[in-house]
């Protein structure tokens, strides 16, 4: 990222793997009736994390959970202020979410605005029994009353810093780093 330098690596590849296994077990522990569960990943990295959790749950429990993809662009609250219109990515939820326990998955929880948009969008697909939020990193600085149910790691950050989750699937790297303004 231009104008930023890497401050610390907060999760290594091995850490990410361990964390995801723990999170998968926490999901199963909280909702033992696995027939109710459905995973929905928020574009872009939330989708990869969701896919990995699905694989882990299949490995430990032997079941295939339904997996959906959510792009929240059309529900953003800053569409007319961000400059050029952001591109709209794929949304695909091809299962019935009514009465499901939906695990909403993203890489980083920051202001909470993405999650607000995601909750609104999910409502347009039906009425889940419950929605629970899972994030790999919670970095604080909420601007809305939103909290996560499952957190990989809490990282205190300054608001000007960036947290980058890098995943093999698109970044060809596997780590979580905090970036700080270069000057």
């Amino acid at each position: 990222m231009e104008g930023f330098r890497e401050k610390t690596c907060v999760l290594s590849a091995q850490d990410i793997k361990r964390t995801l296994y723990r999170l998968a077990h926490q999901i199963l522990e909280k909702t033992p009736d696995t027939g109710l569960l459905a995973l929905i990943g928020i574009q872009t990295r939330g989708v990869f994390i969701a896919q990995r959790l699905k694989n882990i749950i299949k490995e430990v429990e032997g079941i295939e959970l339904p997996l959906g993809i959510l792009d929240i662009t059309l529900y953003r609250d800053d569409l007319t202020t961000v400059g050029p219109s952001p591109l709209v990515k794929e949304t695909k939820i091809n299962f019935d979410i009514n009465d499901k326990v939906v695990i909403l998955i993203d890489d980083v929880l920051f202001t909470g605005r993405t999650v607000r948009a995601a909750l609104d969008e999910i409502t347009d697909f039906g009425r889940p029994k419950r929605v629970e939020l899972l994030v790999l990193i919670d970095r604080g600085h909420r601007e809305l009353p939103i909290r996560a149910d499952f957190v990989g790691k809490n990282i205190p950050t300054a608001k000007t810093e960036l947290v980058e989750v890098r995943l093999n699937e698109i970044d060809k790297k596997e780590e979580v780093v905090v970036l700080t303004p270069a000057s």
Partner: protein
Amino acid sequence: MEGWTKKHIIALKDLSRSEIETIFSIAQNFKEISQREVKKTPTLRGKTVINLFFENSTRTRTSFELAAKRLSADVLNFSSSASSLSKGESIIDTIKNLESYHPDILVVRIGLSASLEVLKKHTRASIVNAGDGKNEHPTQALLDMFTVKEAKGTLEDLKVLIVGDILHSRVARSNIFGFQKFSSTVRVCGPQTLIPYEFEKMGVEVFYDLDAAIKDADVIIMLRIQRERQSGMFFPSIREYVEKFSLTPARIKKAKSNCLILHPGPINWDIEISSTLKERLHPLILRQVENGLAIRMAVLYLIGTQKKDNENTN
């Protein structure tokens, strides 16, 4: 793909290949919205779209209306027959009056060719061309191209044949500009009286014999014989036109075997196309209508979410 900066969508001639690809990418992802339980997103909430139709239209207007509604914009339909235009008000006065409602987007259809460049100076809103005389009909060409891309997987190096009343056709012009940007070859075919000289300068291959033109075509776009625009002098009789330019099963055999046939509708069966082809054409025509909605949603999204202070005059 680049960020979108255009304020208006008036002509395909003025869109870059990359801008067209951006529209397609967004339209592709908008198709899913129409399959949801709640077929609507809050994206353009609080925006006002005025459908300003100085010429009749049902398909294009309803498609734009539904596109705007699916994105939660408020829509006002204004048609010339039911307006003060019939009482003698000028078009510019009408636009100035509507300006008091602070519209964000005007979707305009108008009989005067290329008049939107003038009209856009009289409004702060963005203008989307829904057909301006014989000039352009950009969203129709975009949906044709999008449908071709879906079916063929590419828009590169295709042989695209446009048949019929080229002279009066804004659809033909927009498609020519569009397909040429993807290095496809465009052929036009029709009676000599209905193909203006300027088309040869546009880099298209001109044919007056459909049997020759159709050879190896990947895509055939059939245009409607616009009887409302014919003063009756362009070809001797409908019967002769059918004889020479109607698409028949025998003629299609000369095109590529997987040739795609498109028609902007409404079709005059047994004039431009033999009704024995109904079954082959129906699924494609429905696909075009569905894609038209997604394309119009994409266009409204891109210009409707521009920053308020976009003083770009393009």
